[in-house]
């Protein structure tokens, strides 16, 4: 059942006060965060202050909103006024934004209780959260394994029930992959459905903020709360259509599900098997499954790494030690200060991507890399357009495997890049996709699958995901951690 609705009911029925509930979450964070490393900054005081406000409202007999008083968390790349926002990079240590990200403005207005900021790969560059300046977040199912990345902290916190829900960001799979690793739900909305204003940019044409939740219903509630037109973001068109959960069609009889053969290439057997089991569930619910090829998918990974790195190399140019964040201690003149600040402030993965991005945009290489990648991006967009003439949504593995062991991802960057193969096409094409749990491997680590929809078809994929959750709820498991509602 929806965590958000459950909490809402508990609060309105006065089963528990918001302050008590918030304190419970804070206590559980205190107990588990040493091992999980999900939070990099716990904002206990503001959380309690907000909870007291909610309690006062309830005491006065006022009605409260669905998200009001629900303890949650934000990935540390979402700007929070007056609260340190570091992107888990040394270079932004001490940086306290003077404005709120639009998504946080919205949730704060709804009365959300912010427990703290969660761990992530530095500037969202990575697949295990281990490029974080604060060390990696671990997996609540098995802390020898990583929580995934880049939104590993949010996924770990939600998976471990030390936050009722959270917001992450997804540039190449950064919501879906950790959600898959941690056995929870992660929605990457359509590009332009949620305002990016205040999301510290990694790759602007791919970044999108989305919910990380325990259930599909929660994802839908949070998505409805944050998706809106925002005049501050030119690329934001808002939610085109109705609120997703009220209108989702849980009856998927007659729906056409597409299975793209290329998505199954190189996928670990147990992961593939879980997916095919899910296909059977859908068939039993009356959906029609069609198989087809999408050769363009093969280009997705290089296209992603070229475009993402190119944009990152430009987006990260502003970190120079002059205005905010970390500044090298010893230097000789402005130029030297900038060089030292960056050399000392950025981690290896970030440097690697800045170098790659600078290279592909350089005179003489632009045409061979960046321009070609942009052209191929068009090819991928078109391939999906074609696919959605054949099916209502595409069902695919989220990641070809389950959560890596800690330390594995950083030991071989290129091999780790390859594990993004299933998630990046969605970002390239600007599509919505939701990852939901669909099984466990022999070590008990969760396996995820993603439902990919056409642009602004969040209602379709959330409806279908909800139908699966109802039919195969055994795949949505709690861990030993956190607040038991």
């Amino acid at each position: 059942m929806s965590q958000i609705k459950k909490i809402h009911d508990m609060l309105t029925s006065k089963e528990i006060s918001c302050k008590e509930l918030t304190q419970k979450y804070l206590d559980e964070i205190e107990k588990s965060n040493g091992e999980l490393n999900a939070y990099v900054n716990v904002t206990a005081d503001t959380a309690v202050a907000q909870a007291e406000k909610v309690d006062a409202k309830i005491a006065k007999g006022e009605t409260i909103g669905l998200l009001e008083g629900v303890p949650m968390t934000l990935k540390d790349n979402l700007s929070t006024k007056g609260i340190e926002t570091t992107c888990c990079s040394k270079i932004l240590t001490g940086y306290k934004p003077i404005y709120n990200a639009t998504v946080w403005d919205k949730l704060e207005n709804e009365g959300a209780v912010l427990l703290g900021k969660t761990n992530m790969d530095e500037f969202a560059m990575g697949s295990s959260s281990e490029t974080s300046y604060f060390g990696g977040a671990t997996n609540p199912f098995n802390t020898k394994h990583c929580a995934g990345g880049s939104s590993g902290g949010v996924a770990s916190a939600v998976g471990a029930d030390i936050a009722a829900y959270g917001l992450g960001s997804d540039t190449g799979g950064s919501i879906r992959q950790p959600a898959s690793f941690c056995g929870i739900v992660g929605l990457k909305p359509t590009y332009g459905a949620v305002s990016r204003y205040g999301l510290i940019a990694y790759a602007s044409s791919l970044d999108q903020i989305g919910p990380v939740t325990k259930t599909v219903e929660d994802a839908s509630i949070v998505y409805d709360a944050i998706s809106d037109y925002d005049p501050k973001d030119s690329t934001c068109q808002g939610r085109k259509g109705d609120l997703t959960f009220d209108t989702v069609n849980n009856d998927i009889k007659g729906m056409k599900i597409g299975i793209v053969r290329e998505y199954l290439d190189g996928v670990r057997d147990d992961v593939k098997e879980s997916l095919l089991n899910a296909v059977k569930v859908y068939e039993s619910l009356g959906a029609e499954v069609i198989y087809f090829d999408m050769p363009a998918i093969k280009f997705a990974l290089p296209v992603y790494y070229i475009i993402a790195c190119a944009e990152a190399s430009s987006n990260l140019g502003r970190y120079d030690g002059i205005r905010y964040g970390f500044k090298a201690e010893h230097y000789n003149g402005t130029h030297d200060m900038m060089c030292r600040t960056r050399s000392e402030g950025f981690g290896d993965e970030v440097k690697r991507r800045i170098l790659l991005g600078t290279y592909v945009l350089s005179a003489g290489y632009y045409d061979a890399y960046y321009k070609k990648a942009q052209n191929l991006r068009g090819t991928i967009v078109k391939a999906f357009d074609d696919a959605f003439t054949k099916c209502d949504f595409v069902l695919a593995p989220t990641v070809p495997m389950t959560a890596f062991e800690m330390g594995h991802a950083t030991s071989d960057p290129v091999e780790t890049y390859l594990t993004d193969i299933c998630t990046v096409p969605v970002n390239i094409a600007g599509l919505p996709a939701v990852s939901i749990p669909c099984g466990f491997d022999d070590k008990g680590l969760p396996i995820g699958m993603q439902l990919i929809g056409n642009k602004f078809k969040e209602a379709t994929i959330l409806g279908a995901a909800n139908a699966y959750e109802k039919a195969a709820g055994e795949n949505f498991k709690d861990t030993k951690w956190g607040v038991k509602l």
Partner: protein
Amino acid sequence: MKYELVAGFETHVELSTKTKIFCSCTTAFGGEPNTHCCPVCIGLPGTLPKLNRQVVKYAIMAGLATNCEIAEVAKMDRKNYCYPDLPKAYQISEYDKPLCEHGYIQLSNGRKIRILRIHIEEDAGKLVHAHGDTYVDYNRGGVPLIEIVTEPDFRSVDEAREYVEKLQLIMRCIGVSDCRMQEGSMRCDVNISVRPEGSDKLGTRTEIKNMNSINNIAKAMEYEYERQVDVIENGGKVIQETLRYDDASNTTSSMRGKEDANDYRYFRDPDLVTILTSREEVEEIRKTLPELPEVKKERYVEEYDIPEKDASLLTKYRKVSEYFDEAIEGLKTPKTVSNFIIGSIFRRVETEKDKESFDVAVSPKQLNELVKMLEDKKIQNNLAKKTLEKMLDTGKPCTEFIDESDLGGVDDNALAQMCQSAIDSNPAAVADYKGGKEKALMALLGNVMKQSRGKADAQAVRAKLIELIG
């Protein structure tokens, strides 16, 4: 050997929109450092630009006023370079799809200076060196600019001078910029090369920056022309480089720093959407464009019989021509208004800046009333001029200074009497005049004018005096 100068201009013009190009901060000049700033224009992490549509409109106006074609589809790109005055480490500009292209400005010698492109972009902040430290002020960061790029069509310094003046006139007239070079709201970079006269090959060019007046541009070009000719004459080669003009020594010197062999790694800014301009929108804007100074000047000369030099002065500042247009309404002699503006009012409005704002104590309507009286022969020219001075001193209408007794001409009898009186009391002058000294008549004339308190018609007095002296 004789050498021909070849030059092209890149001119940055600050647009006078109220707010910046990507945020709603004020564009006002000056202000305490870093007070005209917000998270967007200081490039805080996570902020996004939002294009101010007024900037697009102003750029289209500039394009139309310089005969450009306006693109239906344009886009913004990032120009990446790292410098402390550029808080995002990239400038948002337009690289390969500028808003305006293929225009021209025609010079008085008939030559057309082709305009390659006009694109919009954001200004950077500026570094302030004080107390042995360097500070950065982002007030100017994000102020909208257009960059107007010409083909290398200039063949003389005079052409360059005329071009810059004309560009200033046009931009001011259409109201998109005040084009104040001293304040930096207009900045010119000149590409310059020389070649043997008659050659059609372009020589190696240098780029001169940092000239803050038209005179400096002219001086810098002259200097650089001579320098390049010297280099070639002495068997050397001109090196392609960026030069800084030094006003004090009137020399150019090589610039080091951010321009050093930069690869700007241009790419489309993913934070901004495509700029679409419909043909209807462009035609709407075209309709609202005011009459351009050049056209207006010609009209003043032809319709109002105003000397070309005076017409130029009247059309040089938008406010002045607006004042003139309003003041001549319903009058038969616009030329008189022109004379009053240039002869009297301009003496009180001396600086460029004052002419630009043209804040005059006498309203166009008040001037109109005064000239109307003159046209109706109610008062004479001298009195009108004196009255105008008083009006300018006080801001009061002409009726305050002209009483009943001033009004109306002097009738013939009275005039004859006054003339006779002048002759009678100045026998010496009469004798001189009779002896052939034409000028002696002036003393008599002055006497009559004094008697009539300036309201007698000087021509009539003169005729009467001659008649009476016989």
